């Protein structure tokens, strides 16, 4: 059963068509990766799903509910959560307050504080919890934003290039973290360029190219597709 379904969605910015007639279904409980070369429309599609852009055409369903006209906060309240491509945290606020602001609608009192501590430890940020988020490294800010997204305990977690700026070890840890939350039932849609990371987490992969769906399937089937190799992976990576 699809948790989120994108039906015939297009997005045009003036004369530029960033996304064109995309149909995409993300099944409940899966980790679905969206890949494609730069400019393929991946981040635009994310912003359409989460409501930061209104689609020019098409509709978006969350479960059975048409959320096309809903504002982002309403979609988040339904159970979506997103980590943006560039770190988007509250830079002038302490790290703990960033997490607290994300948690406070769901938990209060000692429960909230315990969950703050758990997340900060999980994200390797416990020692920096009193620092302003703006002084963290790029990778740490990525972690913090992932933590804020996780704090909402969403049904659908959207991650736009979650490992950008991370070391291979941090990238691997991020993959394991995502898999652990998926094992608890969270559906995850990831935009990512790092193929090792995609191999680590993806159960299904969709390739986007020039704003259209180009291919979909398992990563192995995608890698064996000559056309995909040509437009994105480069033939040497395909085998």
């Amino acid at each position: 059963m699809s948790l989120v379904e994108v039906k015939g969605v297009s997005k045009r910015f003036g004369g530029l068509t960033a996304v064109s007639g995309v149909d995409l279904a993300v099944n409940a409980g899966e980790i679905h990766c969206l890949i494609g070369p730069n400019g393929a429309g991946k981040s635009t599609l994310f912003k359409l799903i989460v409501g930061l852009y209104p689609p020019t055409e098409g509709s978006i369903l969350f479960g059975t509910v048409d959320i096309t006209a809903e504002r982002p906060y309403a979609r988040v309240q339904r159970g979506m959560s997103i980590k943006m491509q560039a770190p988007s945290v509250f830079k002038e606020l302490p790290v703990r307050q960033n997490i607290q602001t994300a948690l406070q609608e769901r938990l209060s009192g000692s429960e909230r504080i315990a969950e703050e501590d758990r997340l900060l430890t999980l994200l390797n940020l416990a020692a920096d919890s009193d620092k302003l988020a703006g002084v963290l490294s790029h990778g740490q800010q990525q972690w913090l934003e992932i933590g804020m997204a996780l704090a909402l305990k969403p049904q659908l977690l959207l991650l736009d290039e979650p490992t950008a700026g991370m070391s291979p070890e941090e990238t691997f840890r991020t993959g394991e973290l995502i898999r652990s939350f998926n094992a608890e039932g969270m559906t995850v849609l990831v935009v990512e360029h790092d193929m090792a990371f995609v191999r680590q987490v993806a159960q299904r992969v969709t390739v986007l190219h020039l704003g259209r769906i180009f291919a979909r399937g398992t990563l192995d089937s995608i890698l064996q597709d000559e056309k995909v190799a040509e437009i994105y992976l480069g033939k040497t990576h395909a085998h």
Partner: protein
Amino acid sequence: MFKLLEGPQTLGRGKMFWSCFLVVLAGALAYPLFADSYDVGNFAYFLIWIFMALGLCLMWGYGGMLSFGQTLFFGIAGYGYGVLAINMGGGSATIAALVLSVVLAMIAAGILGYFMIWGGINGIFFGIVTLSATLVLAFFLGQTAGPEWHIGPARLNGFNGMKGMDPLTVGDFYIEGSALYYVMVALIVIVYLALRMLVNSGIGNVIVATRENPQRAEMLGYDVRKYQLLTFVIGSGLAGLSGALYTSWGQFITPSSIGLPAAAMPIVWVAFSGRSDLTATLVGSFLLLFGFQTITVYSQQAALVLMGALLLATVMLAPQGFVLGIGKLAADWWQGRRRRGDVVADAGRLQPEES
């Protein structure tokens, strides 16, 4: 609930800070016992404006909305108080007039704020729209000199201003002089503590998060427009409280108290003090008002020039505000002493809430 009095959004925490607070409060309460009634009346006058400054601090410093329209709501409530007090017959009804005039200002803020915030107006345009609305009201009231401009028996009187309303009254007792001073002190304490609790609460977290990154705040599931509107309405209501108290204090109000020079003053007070902290705004605004009034006795032009110079100096030298900067330096110095083991008392500084 009272633990919200301290938190990451407010300067000052621990026994040392609250001891200082109580000492200042005790001094304020004892002041009329030692000062002559003229000085007490002047102090009451300074204190009237503090509400407007605290309201702007909430909107601008915490909410990131630079409103140039504090005197718009000051004027609405000020004239509202006059109209209501005259129409309701004065006496104890002035208390109701005070409350209703503040509610009137908040309703006006709700309407203006709704169209601005839901219309996506932010940043510098927020200031431009609020200033425009302020000037519209000031110019409108300035042309109401004719006898046809009246609401019931209350004449608006154009540039000469509205007069003839009773001061705040309970029974046969006029709240003036020392009584008004004590009312001001009590209201300031209530408003100051309530605002501290607000900004350190979950709502305050969302207000400052919206200031920092409204898109991220919305992506946490908050309808940031509602929080911005709430901030705007509360801040404007406080400006309205200043307006109603001002009219009650002087038993008159003129359009000049709404116009451009008046509208610029709260910006100077709050910018100089430190817009991101309530205590800095409270202290700094009082000092500036006191200084301004003292200089005005000799030359109003000199006082205005000084205000302009202070705003320039703030922008150039201490964009976060002079009083806040001094407060942080003092807090850091005190923290340093604590770390060296010289003292064990708690100290105040902006820092995250301890878990």
